[in-house]
Every structure is written in structure tokens, then in C-alpha cells.
């Protein structure tokens, strides 16, 4: 049986070779750098008016997306909130298509009709980008339901912030996942602030992970600034979901260095500059590159060169998005329904 101890040990012992592992570790650094440079460029584009509406940046939380997605298979499902640029990039979506979507261009992953909060890639089972806090959590439960219904080994992963856990949708979705034993991993990225409200002011219980006990669900608290720690925790949760059909709630403690969105100040009134500075000391990219250098997998010049390469790639993606054409006017009425014959013209 798939979930027996022997089978689990067999899987665990099938570790990659040291070289493969080194490459994997370096790839995580690269991915985090991609996300960081992308988000910085997106912030710049927003200030220049090239990105409109809302833009929620992931800076400081990169290790969570990279570490957790590294544990997934291509056919696993991912559902995110609106702060999902990092997850989309970590999933393998190209910076070009993501930037083009932020710019609202036809070459964007959602044809320019979704925007920052609605990035989708059906081929990669990246099921969005959702704007209503907490409302996407039942969707992940539903995707997990489908996997179990079909008898596949797929897992559904849901990312949300700690402010979503007070939401009714969170409660209903986790209850059903536990009740029906669905292959789900719920990842709460606890960056301590729901927009401008500190967690202590919004939650009767501070430790998010304790919520899982309401559903008799396995839970873990994870240091989200260390990508390897994140990956290992995710491995355990994914294994449990895939082979035991049991959901897990991971409370991942992380920190966002920017404001809630581009419309918010970096620290505003709800946190101090000193606090932000303190957390910057545990910048996940800095943490990981230090480890790679310490372990001898890379040296400083290599890290800098990697960063330069990534920066150039992002700059190119920016140029691509900037020059890409807008959607055709007729696109206004397409994709409302499957057959365009019943479009928006009532």
C-alpha cells in the first residue's frame, strides 16, 4: 500500500545525487532572484503607470513559493490569492507572459483580461490568482475532491494569508477537506499583517496552526524564510496528501518587506521601520545564497553573476511587455461563455 512505512522509506531513499541536488539548490536561488527582480521591476512599472489597478508584491516571501512548489509535480493543482506573481513564476510561467499580463497585454497569460490578481496557466495547473480573501480556499478543496474522485495521485495546494483564516470560507473548506479526507495542502503565509492590521488585533488565537485542531487536521509551523526548511515541510505535507489522502495546514512564518500593495506605504502606521529593518536581516535570498556559498556550491562572483543574468532577463521581459500590443477590441466579448454566441450583448 502506498502509504505504508516501507513504501515511504523507499521513496525517501530515492534521493537525487549530490550533483543533481546542487543543481536543484542553485535553481531555487535563481527562482527566488527571478521573483525578487520581477517584483521590483513590477513596482517600478506600477509607479510609471504601466501597471494599473492593484499590484501586491511578494518581496520577502520568495522562499515560501519556491520551496513549496519545488515539492510538487506538474499535474498537481495550485490555487493562490491575489499576491501570486511569485507563485506563478515559481511554477514555471515565463516572466514575459506574467509581466505582459500585469501590463494588460494580449500576450499576457490571461490575454490581458485578468490582470495582476488573476494569473492563470491551465497547462501548468496553475488555477489562479483570486481577489476575494479566503474565497479561493474552497476551490482548492474542490480540486482535491476531483483528484480523489478520479482516483489520481494529484494534490491541490492552496496559498492564503493569515488574515484569511478568520474567514468563513476557510473554515468551511478545511472542515470538508478533513471530513472527506481530501489530498490538500493549505499553506497559510503568515506575514503577520492583514493589510494594515496586525494578526494580534484580528485573531483571538495567534498561532494559526492551532486552527487545524478544529478539524483534526495535521499542522506544522514552518520557518518560511529558509527555502530548504520550506521544501522539507512541503515534502511531508504533499506525501501525506498524495498517499494518505489527508490534508495538512502549514503555518509558514514569513514577512513582507513592502506594503500590502503598491498603494500602501512600506511600514505606514501599523509597523515600525525598525521592525522592517530587523526582518530584512532574514531576507530569504540572502539566507540561501549565504548557505550555498558556505556549502561550497557557489561563490560570491557566481551569485552576483546569477543575479545580473536574472536582472537582464527581467529587464527583457519588461521591454517585451511594454512593447506588446493590447488585446483586440473584440476580445471584450469573448470568453464570457464557452460559445461566444451568447456574449455580453443582451
Amino acid at each position, binding site marked *: 500500500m502506498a502509504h505504508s512505512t516501507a513504501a515511504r522509506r523507499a521513496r525517501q531513499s530515492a534521493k537525487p545525487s549530490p550533483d543533481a541536488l546542487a543543481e536543484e539548490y542553485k535553481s531555487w536561488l535563481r527562482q527566488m532572484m527571478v521573483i525578487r527582480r520581477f517584483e521590483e521591476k513590477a513596482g517600478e512599472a506600477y509607479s510609471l503607470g504601466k501597471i494599473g489597478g492593484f499590484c501586491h508584491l511578494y518581496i520577502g516571501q520568495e522562499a515560501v513559493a519556491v520551496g513549496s512548489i519545488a515539492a510538487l509535480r506538474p499535474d498537481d*493543482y495550485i*490555487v493562490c490569492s491575489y499576491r501570486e506573481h511569485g507563485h506563478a513564476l515559481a511554477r514555471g510561467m515565463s516572466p514575459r507572459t506574467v509581466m505582459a499580463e500585469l501590463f494588460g497585454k494580449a500576450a*499576457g*497569460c*490571461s*490575454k*490581458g*483580461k*485578468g490582470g495582476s490578481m*488573476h494569473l*492563470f*496557466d*491551465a497547462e501548468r495547473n496553475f*488555477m*489562479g*490568482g*483570486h*481577489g*476575494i480573501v479566503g*474565497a*479561493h*480556499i*474552497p*476551490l*482548492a*478543496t*474542490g*480540486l*482535491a*475532491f*476531483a*483528484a480523489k*474522485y*478520479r482516483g489520481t495521485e494529484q494534490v*491541490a495546494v492552496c496559498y492564503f494569508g493569515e488574515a484569511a483564516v478568520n474567514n*468563513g*470560507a476557510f*473554515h*468551511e*473548506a478545511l*472542515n*470538508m477537506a478533513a*471530513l*472527506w479526507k481530501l489530498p490538500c495542502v493549505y499553506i497559510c503565509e503568515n506575514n503577520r499583517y492583514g493589510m494594515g492590521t496586525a494578526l494580534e488585533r484580528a485573531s483571538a488565537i495567534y498561532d494559526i496552526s492551532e486552527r487545524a485542531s478544529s478539524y483534526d487536521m495535521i499542522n506544522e509551523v514552518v520557518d518560511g524564510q529558509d527555502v530548504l526548511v520550506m521544501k522539507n515541510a512541503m515534502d511531508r505535507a504533499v506525501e501525506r496528501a498524495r498517499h494518505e489522502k489527508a490534508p495538512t495546514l502549514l503555518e509558514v512564518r514569513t514577512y513582507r518587506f513592502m506594503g500590502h500593495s503598491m498603494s500602501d506605504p512600506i511600514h505606514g502606521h501599523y509597523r515600525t521601520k525598525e521592525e522592517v529593518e530587523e526582518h530584512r536581516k532574514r531576507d530569504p535570498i540572502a539566507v540561501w545564497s549565504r548557505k550555498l556559498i558556505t556549502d561550497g556550491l557557489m561563490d560570491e562572483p557566481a551569485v552576483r553573476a546569477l543575479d545580473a543574468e536574472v536582472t537582464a532577463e527581467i529587464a527583457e521581459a519588461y521591454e517585451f511587455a511594454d512593447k506588446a500590443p493590447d488585446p483586440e477590441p473584440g476580445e471584450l466579448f*469573448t*470568453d*464570457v*461563455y*464557452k460559445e461566444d454566441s*451568447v*456574449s*455580453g450583448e*443582451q
Partner: protein
Amino acid sequence: MAILTYRDALNAALREEMRRDPDVFLMGEEVGVYQGAYKVSRGLLEEFGPVRVVDTPITELGFAGVGVGAAMAGLRPVIEFMTWNFALLAIDQLINSAAKMRYMSGGQVGVPAVFRGPGGAALQLGAQHSQAFESYYAHIPGLKVVMPATPADAKGLLKSAIRDDDPVVFIEGEMLYNTKGEVPEGEYAIPLGQADVKHSGGDVTIVCHSKTVSVALKAAEQLAGEGIEADVVDLRTIRPLDHETVLESVGRTHRCVVAEEGWPFAGVGAQVVDVIQREAFDELDAPVVRVSGADVPMPYNKHLEKAAKVDPGKVVEAVGRVLYR
């Protein structure tokens, strides 16, 4: 032709579609062990098992979202709301998730789900349990809204709704479940977006849907006794609306009454009137008159409730007005 109740016609549709397509499953409160709050799903758990007939906790928002998620993965869920009054809790999933998914994703991810259950009033259920919300959902691009009035239509339309690749809001009626009617034998499905003329006549058009269809037919009978022949147009699908059938009828009769169960402000009837005055202005010999539920929360008292509802007398009186009698 068999004579079936509306309820059994729905049951037959579910059964046939679940046999036909393994991706179809039913989820909702009391749909399995209890055999359905209104017995629409009677016997389905026994035939298809608990994986395909899923009882849920009382969590409309949650299980509507689960339905959307499952549909995003390509399954075809039929999500039952015990009544559409309770589905208000799930409206975020229907509107912000289901309706918008295909558009937001640039056409990549669809939601082939059906959300069904009884809507509108029954008898003395009070203000929170008597609401007709079809115009809320008909307002949303990305949703389809279907409301059958007869057993034959119920079966044919539910089958089409299940096969449809877009999210369908399927509103039945507690007061309709026991009604009987002829249902064709064998396999048939009725396309969405097509109205049906339930009684032909050349003197006045009466546009109606769901429970007001039988009201309109009773009014038509009364009017026939006075020498007035009504063309009763049952919309069947609210969104997309069948303009053609309505306009063809008004083009012949030159006068129209629109009857609906819901409240008047921004109701379905308002949309019908807009279509008629926009597209058939020169055919009208009188303004289009609407008959709707009273613009109040539904009262409990039996007589007040009756006064709040649409009845044949009100339709006949409205017909009189458009005929200048």
C-alpha cells in the same frame, strides 16, 4: 408519453446524466441518505454511491466553492442548494468565482457546474424563505439562468444544463415539484436559450416564467371565455433571453403583459420590457404592463401572502389595460 411529476422528471434527468457521464456528481445538503430535502435525489445514493452523491455540512459557501473547484478540474458537479434563499451565502462563489473564471483566465479555465434548487415562495414560509432571486444571477455575464415550468421542460433543460460547459443557475420551485405533466419517453434534451409558446393566440402576448406560467395559462382560459386569445410565452431560460420568440409574438399581437413572481424593481420583467420597447416599438398599441410580486418582504399571514403574489385575476386585469377595455 409518460405522466411524471416535476420532481420525478428532475430525478430522471439526474439519473440519466449520471449514468451517461461518470464526471457528473451531485453534492448538497441531505441529497444522499435523506433522499433529498424535496426528494428530488431519491434513490440516487443507492444507485451511484457516496462518491458521486455527496452529503455536505451546512456550508453553502464552502460546498459551492468545492463545486467550482471540481468543475475547474473538469468534473461536472450538480450542486444542490436546499433553497435559493440559503444560496445567498454562496453568491460570492457563483459570481466572483464561477461566472468570472473563464473570462479572467483568458478562456483557459471553465466551470461546467450546475447550481440547482427551488426558488421563490411556497406557502407562508415568511420573509427569508420566499425569495425569487433569478434577476440577481441573470444580471451576471458568465452565468446562465434556467427556470423550467413543467415536468417535460424540467427534465429536458436539466440535462442540457448538465451538459453545458458554462455555470448554470437552475431554479426550480417548491410549489412545482408536485405538479404533473406529460414527459416524452426516451432520450431528449431541450436547448438552453429557447422560449416556448404554451398557448397560442393573436390578441395579447403574456410573457412569463416558472410559477407564473400556470397563472398565465389560467388567465388565458378566462380571457378565451371573453373572446380574447392570449399568446403565452414561457421564457424557460432567463439568460440568455430568447428575444426572437417574444418579439415575434408581440409583432402579431401588438400588446404585451409580462408576469413574474419576483419583486418589480430591476426584475426579469424589466429586462423583457426593455427588449420589447427597444426592438418592437412600432408594433406596440399600448405600453407593456408588468405584473409582479408585491414590492414587500413576503408576509406570513395567509391572506397577505396571497395578496402579495401574482394570480390569474391580476394578469387578466393587466390584459384589460393593454386592450383599453
